[in-house]
């Protein structure tokens, strides 16, 4: 389906001034004649993508293959608040980038016909209702024929997120990947079974998500109580702690977890918590931890993950306000950019469309 056959269109926002729009691919070049799309962004969307209502018909009509969607939610988590601003931070950081990536020689915007579906509504004080909205909006995106880049929001969002993917593939099975500093395998936390402490636990509850297609990677340090670790041992869910990632290398480990998640499954939920990253590279996260992934390991993980792909890629627990240098929002944006860039290159090399 060519761009002309879809409703998807990238319209630069300048209608006045010295703007000269030369063609549909203008945005992959630095501003030459027009009025500097770089700092003057018009409506701030992710990657400067057009807005699309989170509705399956609208998404299909636009032919979008990637939907960015934010969840300004931080009341499903037990540590410091602030991750409700994460999606806004990623949108802001993306204004400092072009959608073209020279490493993969691809224009992400037109290749995937990326759209920004805005933020999912959340209900203050009501985790259950907020999760229902997340489930509903993700279901619309998936039925709209798109892959989803989901930006949390706290790490309770994979609970409704994986449930949405599970129901979408209800006649098949799904894989579930959880890259995180914390094991998040509590049966419940103080009686609440749907917090940011229970992502893998709730994923395993899903009828078509099997332990053999589940892996956790990057766990470390002392916020991992014994029952969380026992969950992985007792249920034979895959586990690659950070010390193994450091020893074996992030590329090899990432290949292993994606191979396992995609083995015989119809879709994969890829949950990437920003606290998997070293606190020096990601100070702006809910629970910063030392001994995490370093700068180039982040890029390598995203790049390797992109060769496998995922139905939903989720970046969570980003808290821009704890990061006075603003490095975290750009890193989070780049996690998505390198994942999509590598995905695009992989598909193109195989002669496939997204």
């Amino acid at each position, binding site marked *: 389906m060519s761009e002309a056959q879809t409703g998807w269109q990238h319209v630069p926002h300048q209608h006045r001034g010295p703007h000269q729009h030369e063609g549909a691919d203008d945005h*992959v070049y630095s501003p030459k004649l027009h009025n500097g799309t*770089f700092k003057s962004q018009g409506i701030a969307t992710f990657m400067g993508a057009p807005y699309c209502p989170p509705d399956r018909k609208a998404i299909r009509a636009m032919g979008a293959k990637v939907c960015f969607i934010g969840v300004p939610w931080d009341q499903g988590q037990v540590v410091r608040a602030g991750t409700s601003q994460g999606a806004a931070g990623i949108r802001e950081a993306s204004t*400092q980038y072009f959608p073209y*990536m020279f490493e993969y020689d691809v224009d992400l915007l037109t290749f995937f016909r990326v759209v920004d579906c805005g933020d999912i509504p959340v209900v203050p004080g009501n985790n259950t209702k907020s999760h229902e909205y997340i489930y509903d909006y993700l279901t619309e995106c998936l039925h709209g024929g798109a892959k989803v880049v989901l930006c949390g929001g706290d790490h309770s969002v994979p609970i409704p997120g994986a449930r949405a993917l599970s129901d979408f593939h209800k006649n098949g099975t799904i894989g579930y990947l959880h890259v995180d500093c914390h094991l998040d395998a509590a049966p419940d936390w103080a009686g609440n079974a749907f917090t940011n402490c229970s992502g893998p636990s709730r994923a395993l509850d899903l009828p078509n998500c099997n332990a053999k297609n589940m892996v956790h990677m990057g766990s470390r340090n002392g916020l991992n109580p014994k029952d969380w670790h026992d969950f992985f041992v007792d249920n034979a869910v895959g586990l690659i702690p950070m010390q193994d990632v450091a020893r074996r290398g992030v590329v090899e480990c990432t290949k292993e977890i994606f191979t396992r998640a995609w083995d015989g499954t119809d879709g994969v939920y890829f949950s990437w918590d920003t606290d998997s990253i070293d606190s020096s590279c990601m100070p702006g996260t809910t629970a910063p931890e030392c001994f995490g992934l370093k700068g180039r390991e982040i890029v390598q993980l995203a790049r390797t993950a992109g060769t496998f792909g995922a139905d939903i890629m989720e970046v969570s627990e980003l808290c821009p306000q704890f990061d006075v240098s603003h*490095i975290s929002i750009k890193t989070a944006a780049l996690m998505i950019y390198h994942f999509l860039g590598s995905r695009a290159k992989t598909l193109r090399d195989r002669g496939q469309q997204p």
Partner: protein
Amino acid sequence: MNPAKSYAHLFSPLGGEGGENYRAPGQLTFLRAPHVPLETEALKAQSARYAFVGVPFDEGNVGKPGSEDGPREFRIASQEYLSYWFEFGVDLYGLAVDCGDVPMPKVNPDSARERIYRAVTTVLKAGKTPIIVGGDRSISIQAARALSDHIGTGKKMGCLHFGAHLDLADSWAGEKLLSTCALARITELPNLPAANVAHIGARNSMNPKDYIDLAKARGLRFYPMFEIYDRGIDAVTREAVERVWTGTDAQYLSFNFNVMDASAAPGVTATEPGGLESREIVQVADIIGERKTVSLIDVTELAPVFDVSGTTSRLAVCTVLRLMAAMARARGELVDQRLRRSDLTAAE
């Protein structure tokens, strides 16, 4: 050992002058060096090899502002270091003077650019090596032009650039002299062959397609971070240095500190993840230092407002000082290793 020279500064403060000026410098200068007016004759009278010039210019910037405070923080961070470098066995005391900042008119970028050009020319005419600290990357256009004009068309220069962005926009919204156009303008200099240009550290999505197209059209060799992941910084730096120094009469060395990983340099205008780590830039300085001399050094895009812990300016200072130290060692300017603190006490 030169009996006319004081050696007290090689040792930890003994009292007196050495003890007084650590973190209480009186005049805030680069490496506590004497201030010398930015005039060719005044500079010629100095024995120093390097002349430090601050360029607080932020009007060539397309992204986050803040680089005009770079020179000030660079000087402050330089106060934290002493002149003796044990790894190299050399003493940087007396190697540099500080010419202050280029006076900036603000809101008149054309005038500011000419002042930068004149300042660099003044230092070069005095036979000194300028150390230019910005300011945004666009100042490199003026610095390189000054070096090119100084050596003249009969000679060749080389260019080694470190940065996350290629800065190869032929124009940006119609402007030709912004930081995003830096390498595009520099590689148009008549005595800079493409074969002697190398760029290290390109990555991520602030390198639009026309940058890559222009690099190909001009035959520029750039070493992206993906290549450094695979080959290592040592091999890449040696190859790049070889390109830049082979057959050239002058060499221009440019550090945009966004070449560093965002974690190692949070205080730059455009942080980029996936870059060099601290120990890699130290390796870089040591490798370049084997070449003994360089014609011009610039450091750009420091943004102290984002550098809350002061680590970025300190890293930038450390890189420049290590480079100076490595070059001094390569030239054989070594401190007599037999010298002891007790010799000084005895002399008193």
